[in-house]
């Protein structure tokens, strides 16, 4: 035994005698995690969060969350002697007079953009591969909560510098609050401590941004990870991978090195972006005043869809009994986002309710094998992308020399017409890919080698797939339609009524698949010719 081992042994003994952790550690240090690039997306989100905590803490050392009026005396000459809020002045101070301040501000902003992007792509991965199915519904809901809070946290964050651009964003948030029927006016007066903009808004959102929401984030992320750990990670299907096992590498040492290393890579890339790519140059916008605005006002990307929806909303207001309901704000600003996020949160339950599938699933779906879910996902994405395009309609118009009115009308019509179209096309593509899989399994892959047969016919040689590949392409289960039982033999009506009818409809739609090759079909072809 070396001296080092003796020390390690003593420490381990000391800790274990007081916590009994050895049994747990022994098991969990060797815990197996499956390997796939798409499993890194959630990791990127986690690491960005850590980067946000670190860079954000640095910024708080200088940022002054106050709307007190000051006269700028810092080293940025164009704004010298301009009256502004202390918040904006301190954000300028961080950018110009604190060494590394601008770098950390840009790292913080880039990390926020990456954080949100990673969450969204991670969510898409989980959705399209069916990783949200039983037993992981809770984690899906936690994920949706993190996404929602992330949007709010990001918005509050870029509102803090109190520049002309961010103030305009706050103005819009204020209008959304004020549009809420019955209580909106009161809520806005409470939130802003009186009329807009007031002098309390920045200090209030500051404490929410740096304490309240990060605290909630920490709690939710902890539970999210604990559930991943406890439920064991899902894995992609393949030879040797079943619903009853996890195939992969041990946490210690492989994932400690890989995941630990990956944290440094994400941090390094964020630092690189902070070093070379200027983001949110607040000194160009000037201090906020409600009477001015900069053209081409754009929110951060994850708010773009919301802005796009607001822009394309029809000019509708209702006046009833002396009260005003602003549909043009409520609909795109609260009602549609509410429906979207509630729908997302409930999706695992809706799918299992309609399919009647209550089993645990640990093997992921290949998206093509679940055409309806995949099509629904692409349909929703299409909706969001069109909303987002419309959120940038002014920039698109100026960059591509188009008319804003045309883009707006394209979006208004497109957002209704294109998502269903995307559904149909995606479903067709999924079925075609299933057909291609079937071809591959039964006839092998094309080699590009042509051979002339003795009687003059040309044929292309097809190379048979390996047994592993064949299995990977056929291991999935193809759902069957559930027959509708209106009443039982005794003439008693099915108590499940509507649900039974819906289930019959949806299971019939889900059963529309290209039949995968069976063992006997494969055998038959192997015995004969290709």
């Amino acid at each position: 035994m070396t001296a080092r081992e003796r020390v390690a042994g003593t420490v381990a003994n000391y800790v274990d005698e007081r916590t009994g952790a050895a049994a747990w550690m022994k098991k969990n240090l060797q815990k197996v995690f499956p390997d796939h690039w798409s499993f890194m997306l959630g990791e990127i989100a986690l690491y960005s969060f850590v980067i946000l905590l670190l860079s954000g803490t640095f910024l708080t050392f200088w940022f002054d969350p106050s709307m007190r009026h000051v006269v700028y005396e810092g080293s940025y000459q164009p704004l010298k002697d301009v009256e502004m809020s202390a918040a904006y002045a301190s954000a300028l101070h961080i950018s110009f007079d604190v060494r590394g301040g601008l770098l950390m501000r840009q790292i913080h902003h880039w990390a926020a953009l990456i954080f949100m992007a990673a969450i969204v792509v991670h969510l898409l991965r989980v959705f399209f591969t069916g990783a949200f199915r039983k037993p992981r519904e809770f984690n899906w809901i936690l994920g949706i909560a993190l996404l929602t809070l992330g949007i709010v946290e990001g918005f509050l964050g870029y509102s803090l510098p109190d520049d002309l651009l961010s103030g305009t964003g706050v103005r819009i948030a204020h209008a959304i609050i004020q549009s809420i029927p019955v209580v909106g006016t009161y809520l806005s007066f409470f939130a802003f401590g009186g009329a807009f903009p007031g002098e309390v808004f920045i200090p209030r959102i500051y404490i929410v941004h740096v304490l309240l929401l990060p605290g909630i984030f920490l709690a939710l992320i902890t539970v999210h990870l604990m559930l991943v750990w406890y439920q064991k990670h899902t894995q992609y299907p393949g030879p040797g991978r079943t619903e009853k096992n996890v195939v992969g590498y041990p946490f210690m040492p492989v994932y400690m090195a890989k995941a630990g290393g990956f944290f440094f890579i994400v941090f390094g890339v964020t630092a690189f972006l902070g070093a070379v790519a200027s983001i949110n140059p607040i000194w160009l916008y000037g201090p906020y005043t409600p009477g001015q605005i900069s053209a081409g006002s754009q929110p951060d990307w994850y708010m773009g869809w919301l802005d796009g929806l607001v822009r394309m909303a029809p000019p509708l207001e209702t006046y009833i009994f002396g009260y005003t309901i602003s549909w043009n704000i409520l609909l795109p600003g609260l009602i549609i986002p509410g429906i979207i996020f509630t729908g997302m949160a409930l999706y695992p339950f809706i799918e299992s309710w309609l399919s009647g599938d209550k089993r645990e699933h640990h093997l992921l779906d290949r998206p093509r094998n679940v055409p309806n879910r995949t099509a629904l996902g692409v349909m929703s994405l299409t909706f969001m992308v069109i909303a987002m395009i419309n959120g940038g309609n002014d920039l698109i118009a100026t960059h591509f020399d188009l008319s804003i009115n045309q883009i707006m009308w394209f979006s208004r019509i497109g957002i209704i017409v294109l998502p269903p179209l995307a559904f149909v096309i995606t479903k067709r593509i999924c079925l075609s890919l299933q057909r291609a899989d079937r071809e591959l399994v039964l006839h092998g892959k094309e080699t590009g080698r042509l051979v002339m047969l003795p009687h003059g016919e040309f044929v292309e040689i097809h190379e048979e797939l390996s047994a592993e590949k064949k299995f990977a392409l056929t291991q999935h289960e193809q759902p069957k339609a559930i027959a509708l039982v209106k009443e039982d033999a005794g003439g008693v009506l099915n108590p499940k009524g509507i649900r039974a009818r819906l289930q019959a409809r949806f299971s019939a739609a889900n059963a529309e698949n290209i039949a995968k090759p069976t063992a006997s079909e494969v055998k038959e072809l192997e015995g004969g010719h290709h």
Partner: protein
Amino acid sequence: MSKELEPLADPGLPEHVHRKADIDPIAAKRAERQVAVLFSLSAFGTLLFIYSFFFIKDDVFIFLPIMGNTNAHQLGIGMGMALSLLFIGFGAVHWAKTLMPDQEINEYRHELKSEPEDRSEFVKTAKEGAEQAGLGRRPLIKRSLAAAVGLAGLPAVILLRDLGPLPGNSLNETNWKTGTKLVTDPGDRPIKASDLEVGGVAQVMPALLAGQKRTLEDIAKDAVLLIRLRPSEFQLDAERLSWTHEGIIAFSKICSHMGCAVALYEQTTKHLLCPCHQSTFDVTRAAKVIFGPSARPLPQLAITVDADGYLIAKQPFTEAVGPSFWERKS
């Protein structure tokens, strides 16, 4: 249908293929050196950071292709930090990929639900606990407790009451009163009709009383745009026409949609455009909405001139300015 048919058999995990570094000690040694080089590059990044932080002045600019003129101090510390982090990452991942075990391990899963005994035991315990508390048998306790807990939430809400004052009538009022002088913003100079040429635009504010200071809350309600057209270009009814003066028409600059500043005026079409959501207002027709999400025209301010020829408000706004709210009369 496929369930009855026999699926293809699972051939099991493919055989493990050793990496070069697993079998060749020279390759392993090479991998070890590569990892060490990567970690050393990280140390170089840290040195670059330290050097840039202390020894490059923050007003030194260097020219780089693509990026143009770049602040050398900012670039030096940023790149130093990026390199010092990235190469730790690259080193660790390379280490894991070349030298740590790459044989896949098979771990078994267990269904998450507890054993039937445990479940029934749990249900029994929970039931017994509830039984012992007697909630079922003592509805009076249950109901009074529910009411008390529900009510106890109220102080939490009531405590928030002083977050802000009640709105009262404030959203319907501005500082524009009958006879208020229009003054330029910025500059606070009174303005005559002749100061504005045909086709010209100016932002104005209500004149301040002596000792009064203009707050952002004032600007958020009072900002007004003056636009001068040829009087023949107006398509207004008699009342609205009488609110203009020699072709000068005044609108609230605060968008009737979400309160942004309606700042873009297109001289040729005589349209006002809000850059936030592209609501477009036709100046010749009393800022009628001709495009975009806004549901109402911009409120028009009636203007005239005083005895000295300075522009003044003929009367206050006749409607609330800015975005809609529940109590707004319209």
